[in-house]
Structures are given as structure tokens and as C-alpha cells.
């Protein structure tokens, strides 16, 4: 079994599978730049399952309102307490959107309130250097969603490490393409995913 398996969270409400090409793209990126023993395919893990604890990093995305069930709430709280890291991306790229409002509320209820993550946080130098903070996405630059260029990611930190990393930048759209098409890009836009994975595995 591989050391690292990319896990996507499946939750009862909303459209958890709105970005099916993000996991293979991130797996491709991990394999491309690191020697991490990564599994060639990702897995889908129910947020209400104890299996959540088997994965150090869990990815959660969607467009629709997020309402955790009691079991999802409990398992996610346990996952975070045991050192797991949840990466949440707002596929709506809209801070007025229902996903952001409901997901951030559920995270606050389950883990704690989200706060701005400073752009000099170690996650921006965990592998590649991102001196200006999180890389912008085409959807932000094109004025989609809330028409904002988000300067920071949000996070809930526990004892000095990121427990929940939250993005309004819509990496789900930015990274949602077949990895074979990466060769058409002048600069790989998924490099930040390496930092997220490396950070989750080393902190």
C-alpha cells in the first residue's frame, strides 16, 4: 500500500463530487515533483466514516450548501483532534455563496472559527516557494463568483499546525482538468497542491 492516498470527502448534503478531476491532477503533481509514495488513484471516504482517520489529508469541495450530519460532525471532529488536515475549497468562488456561508459555519461549529492565514505561513514554503501567498486562479482573475482576488487563505489552527485549510479561490475549477493536459501549460498551476500535501504529511 502506498504511503499517501489522496482522499476526497463525501458528505450527505451538497455536491461533494463536483470536481472529479482534481484528485488525479493532484496525484499527478505529487508524482511529478516529489518522491512521495503516492497511490495512482484517489479514494472517496464518507465524512461520517471512521475510515477518515486513515488519511492524513482529506479534500472537500462543492457548490451547494453544506450541512454536516451528526455522524459527519463527530467523525470530522475526531479526525481533526487526531491530527488530520481538511482542505476545503469553495467551488463557488463566492464569499456570498451558500457553500462558503454554510461550510464555514459548519467548520466553526465542528472545529473552530476560520481566520486569515498569513502569507508567510510555512505552508507557502513547505515545498515550492510562494512568497506572495496562495497562487491566484483564473476564475478569480476573470472576475467570476464574488469578483474578488482573495489575498489570503483561511485556516483553523490547532497547536501551531493547520487543522482546516479553507480556500475561496476555487482551486477545484483551476485544477479540474485531466492531468495529461498539464503539458499545455507554461507554468504548472497545481504546484501549490504539493505544498498542501507535503505540509499535511510533515506537520
Amino acid at each position, binding site marked *: 500500500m502506498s504511503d499517501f492516498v489522496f482522499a476526497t470527502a463525501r458528505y450527505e448534503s451538497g455536491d461533494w463530487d463536483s470536481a472529479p478531476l482534481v484528485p*488525479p491532477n493532484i496525484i*499527478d503533481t505529487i*508524482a*511529478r*515533483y516529489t518522491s512521495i509514495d503516492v497511490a*495512482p488513484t484517489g479514494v472517496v471516504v464518507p465524512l461520517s466514516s471512521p475510515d477518515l482517520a486513515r488519511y492524513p489529508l482529506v479534500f472537500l469541495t462543492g457548490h451547494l450548501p453544506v450541512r454536516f450530519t451528526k455522524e459527519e460532525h463527530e467523525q470530522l471532529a475526531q479526525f481533526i483532534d487526531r491530527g488530520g488536515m481538511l482542505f476545503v475549497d469553495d467551488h463557488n468562488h463566492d464569499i456570498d455563496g451558500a457553500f462558503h456561508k454554510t461550510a464555514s459555519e459548519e467548520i466553526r461549529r465542528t472545529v473552530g472559527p476560520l481566520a486569515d492565514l498569513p502569507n508567510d505561513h510555512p505552508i507557502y514554503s513547505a*515545498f515550492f516557494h510562494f512568497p506572495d501567498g496562495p497562487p491566484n486562479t483564473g476564475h478569480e482573475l476573470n472576475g467570476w463568483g464574488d469578483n474578488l482576488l482573495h489575498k489570503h487563505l483561511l485556516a483553523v489552527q490547532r497547536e501551531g499546525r493547520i487543522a482546516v485549510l479553507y480556500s475561496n479561490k476555487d482551486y477545484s475549477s483551476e485544477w479540474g482538468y485531466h492531468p495529461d493536459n498539464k503539458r499545455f501549460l507554461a507554468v*504548472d498551476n497545481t504546484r501549490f497542491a504539493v505544498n498542501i500535501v507535503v505540509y499535511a504529511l510533515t506537520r
Partner: protein
Amino acid sequence: MSAHSRVARTRAVFTLTALLAALVRGAAVATLVFVLAGALDWAVGLERAARLVVVPMALSLGALVVIFSLWRARRTLNLGAVALWIEERRPVLRYSLVTALEPGAAGAALPDLEQEVHGVGWGTPVLRTASWAVGGPTLLLLVALAVRAALPPGVVSRIETPRAGDSLEHPRRAAVAGANRLTPLVATVTPPAYTRREAVTLEEPSSIAALASSGVRLEGRGSSAGVTAVLGDEALEVMGTTERWSVIFAMPPRPAAVRLGDGGASRVIVLEPQPDSAPVVTLASPARDTVFREARGGVPLEARAADDIGLTALWLEYIVSSGEGESFTFRSGILARRAARGARTASLRSVMRLDSLVLRPGDLIHLRAVAVDGNTATGPDTGVSETRVLRVARAGEYDSLAVEGAPPPDPDASALSQRMLIQLAEELQAKRKRLARKVVVEESRRIGADQARLRKRVGDVIFSRLGEAESGEESGATMPRPSMKPEELLKAAEAATSGEGAHALDFEGDETPVVAVNRPLLEAYNAMWAAGRELEVGEPGAALPPMRAALAAIMRAREAERIYLRGRPAEVVVDLAKVRLAGDIDSASAGMRAPRARLSSSAASRAARLDAALLMLRVDPAAAVDSLALLRVDALLETPRLAAQLAEAVDSLRAGKDATTPLARARREAAGAPVVRAHASEWGGAW
């Protein structure tokens, strides 16, 4: 005044004297009990439970003494007894007084008797006796009152009104406590105002359990100078006067310890915060997600909420999501709201008018109930119900609406019918020789008609699976496929069941699974045809083999694996080797990384700390108790059972009792389950 009147007056004096003496004696006894208890408390310090009974006991004893004294003085009510008492003190009367009072004394002798009595007075002995009777108890009462007045004020109040926390008022302990001001110690816990609960006072607490953010006041005797208090890593301000010191802080949200210090002495108090639970909210109606064909009418809503302390409000909120793909818009609002005003339970009913929400086809309504409690200290805490999703169907999906899934047809019903037909045929075959041919044929045809009805039902199932609403056998004009007539279909079915032409129903190769699923039923169908033919000609014996074959086929169909066709997302498998060989790092450079530190085993750490504390018990018991208390702080969250055992052990050690049992249990909890080996380990060393 007659002799009778004089004796009656003397009796009244004696009665009054007896009553007064009894009351004074009772008061004296009650006061003495109070004084003795006070002296005992001053000397050794009585427990509050013992002090609580002092006043009732003193009053009870006093009342008993009063009753006993009155009982003893009952003779004073008797006129003859009083006259005799006077005769004893005045022998000169020579029983003339007693005689004058006798009921039979009358007539001519009475004036003489009265004359003899008239000249004798007995006021002096009566007054002397009355003075003695009242004076003694009065003196005793005065002495007792004097002693009570001499008792220290703290002792008096501790006996008169015992209450939690009055150990600080004990004067003798205060004097002894000069060397260590950490004992006695009183904690007053004031719950947050929103709970409307009263403050609780604890004496000599080793741990304090209270709602998070409750106000805690620790108080002790003596000056505050030199007394230190540390909560976690934070030093607390010690306030007070020359007689009392106190520390005030709020109950932290997580378990912690307060370490008090006075010179070389220290004392640890464990703080156990009890969180205010969030409200539990249930959305009773609608009970499940559903789909509406049209956004009209009303949906009844019902929500219930409960909280451990008190609710503030309960409401129903919704989010309407419109759009699809990458384009969504949202609207949200509150449908109904009610104030709970601190009630521990609340319910809310309302009706959601779909017309008023201006819904369009495809819109989703996310509905949930929300309740908040009155926690103004660390909250308010919010509880939410499960979210129900109500959807308005799009025009094109009307045919696919299946809100309530219909139960599958019961295969047992068909199988039983086939079994019954077989039984009927077997019975007919068994008595065939005894029946006329005509009767046999009639019975056989009757069974054949039932067999035909059953065959039609099986045919319905097969044809409906092939996409037709009814059986092609009877409808004639409606074909399963335009290119095939029923006879052709049956031929194809026969071919399929014979195993020679599995592709007979494989229309262009795209319906193989359907044929595969239907194969047992097709077999049954054909077997029923064969059985029916034999039954029609009055041959039940010949019909039995195909009937049994039909039953076996139906059973196989019942046990067949169900195949549900669903969409499956395309799975992308990354060719890792290929990716790694074609890696392109662009212009990025790798950053420095530090390896993750090895995680420490908290369980092993706790076990080691417990061992160290137990070793310390022999050398420095006070420090060992503090170590156990601090270990309990860390154990409260992760291993509450260990924390409970440690609490019992700490309490026992502080009370000077044997703590072996709780410490042994704590050791077992800390060490975890024992390692069980299947066999004895091999001997080692020199043998």
C-alpha cells in the same frame, strides 16, 4: 378569708412557681447543651453535620426537661396535698386545715376549724420554697448564658447557623493556621448569570467541577501577603485583608489546576469545567427529503429543541439554490421564529408556503431548524437539526419521478401458487384410477386454467422488464419490439432457455443483461406452457415434470443476483512511472523541510507519571498528592476513568484514609489492558 380560699391561693402560687421553675430549668439545659457543643467545636472542631443537630438537640432536651419538671410538680395541683404540705410546716394546726378541707367537713364543727386555721399563717415557708425552686435553675441559666457569652463569636455562629464555608470562622483553626494559610480553604462557585443557579460553597476542595466561565473564589484565613496562586501558567492576584485572603478567577474552558502556595507549603486544586451543551434540535416535519412536481401549496413544518440549561430562541431557516453547473444563485431567510425565554424545551410549528418562495423548476430548498441557548459566557451555543432538501422537479424529469419507491413484487406469492398447483396435480394423479375419465379431465382443466393465469403473471413480469407495460401475450397489438410478434418473442424465449441461442433476445447486442436476468423466468414461462398443454388434455401426471421445472426456475429467479445499472464516474488512474519520467519542475525550487517529530505516547507518559507519584508517596506525601492531582488534570479529557480513580485517591489521601484500592485501580487504568500471551515465555538467565 376561709381556709379553703387560703389553701387555693397557696396552690396557685405553687403552680406558678412550678411552671416558672420548669421553664427556667429547660432553658438552662438547652443553653448548657449549646455551650458544651460550642466548647467541643472550639476544642476539636465539629463537622457541619454534627453542628447542624446541636440546636435541635438543645431545644428538644430543654423541652423534655420542662415536661419532666411539670410532671414532677403535678402534686401542686392537688388541694389536699397542698394542705398537708402546710400542716407539715405548721404543726400547730393539728390537722384542722386538712379536716376543714375535707368534703364531709360541715355543720357545727366547721366554724371551730376555721377559727383554728385563721390564727395560723404560712406565707413565709411558701415564699422560701418558691424562691428555692426558681432560684437554682435561674442561677444555672445565668452561668450558662455567661459561658455562652464568653465563647468566641465564630464558634457561636458556627453552632447557631452552620453553613458551608464557615470553617474560616473557626477561631482555634485560625490561630493554628498561622504557619500554613492554605488550610482551611473555602471555594465559592458562582455559575454564570444566565443559568440563574445559586452559588455553591465547597470546603476543603480537592477539585472543583462547574460550568465553564463560572466565577470561582478561593478564600482562606490570614493575610494575603506571601500567598501565591497560579492557574496553568498564569499568576493570579491574591487579594484580601489582614484576616482573609482570596483569589478570584473564572473557570477555564479546559481542565486545569490552581496551585496555591504559602511559603514552603503548596496545595493543588483541580478545575473540571463542565461545558454548556449546545441545544439538540430535531426537525420532525418534513421527515425526509422529497421532490415536488409543482411549487404550490404548503408544507407543514415542526421543529423541537432541548437544552441542558435554557433556550433563547428557535427558528426555521431555508436556503433556496437555483441554477445548475457552474451557475448558482442563492436566497435564504427565516420561515418562523419563536422566543424560548429560558425554557429547557421548545417546539415550533409553521407552514412553508411554496408559492411565496417564488420557486422555479430545479430549485432546491435546504431547510433546517436552529436553536440557540442563553449562554452569554462562552456562547451562545447553536444547535441545528438535520437539513432536509426539497426539490422542485424540472419539466423534463416528470416521468422519472419516483418519490416513494414501490416494493418489489413478492416472488413467494407466485412460488406458492405454483406449489399449490403441483400439489393439486399430484393429488389428482394419485386418485386418478378411482375417478371417471370425465371427472379427471374437468379437474385437470381447472388446474390448467390456474396454471395459465400464473403463466400470464410471469409473462407480465418478463414483458414489463423488456419495456412493455403489459403482457404481449394478450395485447396482441402492442409488441415488445416492433419487429417481433408475441409468437416470435416466445420462440426467442424458448430458444434462449434451451441454451442454443442466448443471443435470440440480444437485440443488436444491447439487451443481454435483460435476457440474462429474465432467463429463469423464461424457463418457467415455457415450462408452464408445456404443463398447461398436458393439463388441458387431462394428463396431470405428464404435466407434473414441467410444473416442477417451472417451480425450480421461479426459485432460481428469486435467488438470482440483482443487477442495478447506475452511472459511474470515469476513474482516472495516473501512470506514476510515466509522470515521474516526464517531470518538469519549471522554475520552482524546493524549500527546506524539517522532519516531523516523533509523537509521544500520552498513555505511556501518564503511566510513568503515576509510577513516579506513587514512589514519592513514601517520601513526600503532600507532593505526591499534588502530582496525582496534576495528573488528573491531564487525564480528565482523554481518560475520564483514570481521572475518576485519581480523584478518589486524592480525596482519600487528603483525608488521611487508605487509598490503596483507588490507586490500584488507577494503576490498572493507566497501564491499560494486560498483555495476554498464549504460552509461558521461555526461561532466561542461568538455570
